């Protein structure tokens, strides 16, 4: 029998730690210190355990199959409940553990003034455990269970600040549409079970491909729609906006950085393993089109927002669109790029949500029309936000650029390889979306951090160190993953991408076949991007320029020394008038762009009615379309 401390136990420990923490906090959560210790211990332990698996799984290419109760395969059939951790699962697991850990650190100070904090941590850990269980599970029904746990935890957390305007409404919407998604997953699972008489993922993956019939096709459609709901892909995007707008920032990090990843993970497992249908151009196209549409529609929706968190929510889906597009290319470069972007998205979007939370924490609002000029009061938050904004907009050398650059290469490569001009269009959409993302974040910087400080926020202070620490962790990760794309590709994304492409190894590992050694080839991109060298050049250039600038004493910088009484000299030029509060910013900053797209925007405005019935209808229509489409093409 295996040693209790053997590495094969680590995955189940990682899940159990989170759930255990959730229950223990219910018991001992009244005490502040015990509560925080328990929470940090469980998420930190979970993260540490997964990190310990990196050498074996990522580098060694090992696949850990863990049978609960030691009920393994008998007679070629898997009866027991399995955890199966290959590089892909571990990749997502690490992502989730990291995000949860940082969010937990941030929560300590952030949630200080709320009621019912023990309940918060319980739900928080339930949500984390649910996602962790989902990505590490090797069993389709277990995946459904975890989906249910995380959905309900997320719904409860969305409504956690139920005194806030719209929180209950958002939670209700999320509940309705989320339940439709969960039901779809359950129905799909049942149909597959009826066909294959097993729930083990590996076994299903060995039985179903090649034996498609009407029922399996419907199951594919149901599962696809179900996981799309979890990832908030178009047409489920309005939910995300509502949920993020209402939820506490630390929960937004989880919903955006973790929960959506579970949807992506589900879709990858579904398309690459369960049905192994990525060799079909139509399935690839389905993913790419859904991804591109999500990418573009949501970025334009984000441009129209005037609430910080809703804007971030739409960007979240836009970035998930990038991920799905890249993953849908089915090339090694594409999957690597997609996973890389998924990781970066978790990091930078986490950072941005935390920054939004910091603004919310200090000012009590996230309305872009009411904020402004916070950079003078919250300088650290501003710098951290700018790092996140630069990352998501794809400004070199931050991580967003590294992964987006790979996505462009991958889509263009796909266009050339398949000689299909449609992929070219995807490249262009991706590039334009990236610029629109930049526009959106320029808007946020101007509306929230720069510009003029409103009178009512004159006394705003910098957030406590605990919150800055959480943001700082993400910011460091942003820079590191941006500067070291080769290392990240080598140790994290490429193994995961290889794992996604080798379903046979996954099946054999579970069912006891011979496991081929893992591929280790790195994806080859056509272009060149060497961030370290570039940064070196930029650094030298910047230093030289600063040196030249300081060389002469001609640089007579004069500032308002007293600060209290505003000398007219240091006043902002206001056409000679005494400068008064006039913040240019908020929702309608880029009207020059919107003017040309006004028909599109008014159409979108009419479409997003905010009525849950409509959104439920969209879900049903999407499901119907998916079923019809898959019946025809698969």
């Amino acid at each position: 029998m295996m040693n209790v401390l053997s590495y094969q136990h680590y995955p189940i420990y990682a899940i159990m730690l989170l759930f255990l923490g959730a229950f223990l906090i219910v018991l001992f959560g009244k005490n502040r210190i015990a509560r925080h210790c328990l929470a940090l211990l469980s998420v930190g332990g979970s993260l540490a355990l997964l990190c310990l698996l990196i050498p074996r799984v990522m580098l060694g290419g090992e696949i850990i199959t863990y049978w609960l109760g030691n009920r393994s395969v008998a007679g070629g059939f898997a009866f027991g409940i399995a955890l199966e951790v290959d590089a892909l699962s571990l990749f997502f697991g690490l992502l989730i553990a990291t995000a949860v850990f940082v969010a937990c650190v941030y929560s300590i100070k952030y949630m200080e003034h709320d009621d019912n904090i023990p309940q918060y941590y319980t739900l928080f850990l339930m949500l984390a455990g649910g996602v962790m269980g989902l990505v590490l599970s090797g069993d389709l029904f277990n995946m459904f269970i975890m989906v249910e746990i995380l959905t309900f935890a997320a719904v409860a957390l969305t409504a956690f600040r139920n005194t806030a305007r719209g929180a209950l409404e958002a939670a209700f919407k999320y509940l309705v549409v989320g339940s439709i998604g969960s039901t779809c997953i359950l129905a799909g699972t049942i149909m597959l079970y009826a066909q294959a008489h097993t729930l083990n993922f590996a076994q299903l993956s060995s039985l179903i491909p090649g034996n498609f019939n009407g029922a399996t096709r419907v199951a594919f459609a149901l599962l696809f729609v179900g996981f799309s709901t979890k990832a908030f892909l178009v047409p489920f995007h309005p939910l995300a906006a509502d949920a993020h707008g209402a939820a506490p920032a630390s929960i937004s990090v989880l919903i955006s950085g973790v929960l959506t990843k579970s949807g992506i993970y589900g879709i990858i497992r579904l398309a690459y393993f369960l049905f192994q249908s990525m060799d079909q151009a139509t399935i690839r196209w389905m993913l790419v089109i859904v991804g591109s549409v999500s990418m573009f529609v949501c970025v334009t929706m984000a441009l129209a927002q005037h609430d910080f968190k809703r804007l971030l929510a739409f960007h979240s889906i836009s970035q998930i669109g990038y991920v799905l597009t890249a993953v849908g290319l089915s090339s090694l470069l594409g999957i690597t790029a997609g996973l890389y972007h998924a990781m970066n998205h978790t990091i930078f979007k986490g950072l941005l949500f935390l920054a939004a939370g910091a603004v919310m924490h200090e000012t009590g609002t996230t309305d872009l029309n009411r904020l402004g000029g916070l950079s003078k009061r919250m300088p650290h938050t501003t710098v951290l936000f700018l790092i996140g904004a630069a990352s998501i907009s794809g400004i070199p050398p931050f991580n967003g650029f590294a992964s987006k650059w790979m996505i462009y290469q991958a889509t263009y490569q796909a266009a050339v390889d398949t000689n299909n001009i449609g992929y070219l269009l995807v490249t262009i959409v991706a590039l334009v979306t990236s610029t629109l993302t930049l526009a959106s974040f320029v808007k946020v910087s101007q509306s929230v951090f720069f510009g003029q400080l409103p009178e009512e926020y004159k006394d705003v202070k910098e957030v406590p160190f605990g919150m800055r620490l959480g943001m700082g962790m993400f910011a460091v990760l942003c820079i590191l993953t941006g500067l070291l794309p080769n290392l990240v590709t080598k140790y994290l994304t490429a193994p995961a991408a290889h794992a996604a492409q080798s379903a046979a190894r996954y099946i054999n590992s579970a069912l006891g076949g011979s496991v081929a050694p893992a591929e280790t080839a790195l994806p080859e991109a056509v272009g060149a991007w060497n961030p370290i060298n570039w940064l070196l050049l930029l650094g030298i250039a910047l230093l030289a320029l600063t040196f030249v600038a300081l060389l002469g004493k001609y640089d007579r910088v004069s500032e308002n020394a007293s600060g209290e009484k505003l000398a007219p000299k240091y006043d902002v030029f206001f056409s000679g008038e005494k400068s008064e509060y006039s913040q240019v910013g908020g929702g309608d900053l880029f009207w020059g762009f919107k003017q040309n797209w006004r028909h599109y925007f008014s159409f979108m405005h009419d479409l997003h009615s905010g009525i849950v019935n409509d959104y439920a209808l969209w879900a049903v229509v999407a499901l119907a379309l998916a079923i019809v489409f898959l019946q025809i093409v698969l």
Partner: protein
Amino acid sequence: MFKKLIEESTAKSPWLFHINAGSCNGCDIELVSVLTPRYDAERLGVKLSGTPRHADIVVVTGPVTVQSLPRVLRTIEQVPEPRCIVTMGSCPQSGNVFRGSYSIAGPLSKYVHVDVDVAGCAPKPEAVIDGLVKAIEILREKRRAMN
């Protein structure tokens, strides 16, 4: 050498900022005509700037009405050193025909040091160019004094 270079450059690139302190528009038109092909003050490096922060020479026209006075003073204050103030036309120098009116706060020299006066009602563009040349000399002196 660097000082010399900057001093020379200061004399070769005077940027104007124009303040209308209640002018009848006569001087304003003449000032713009200085930039037209016939007079072409850009030969001297003159450029009309949109904000006082970029300006070297502030040209004030109009009799400095009570309403405009604080604005004029604030705007002049916002011009970085070295700067040079030129009054154009009779109005800012004395109030001209509006002198003594209840709505006139001028002349400008009561409030700030005026470097160059260009008389005329309105001055000929040539006279304005003369005034600018004079202002450039003063600017160079001020720049030298800053060293």
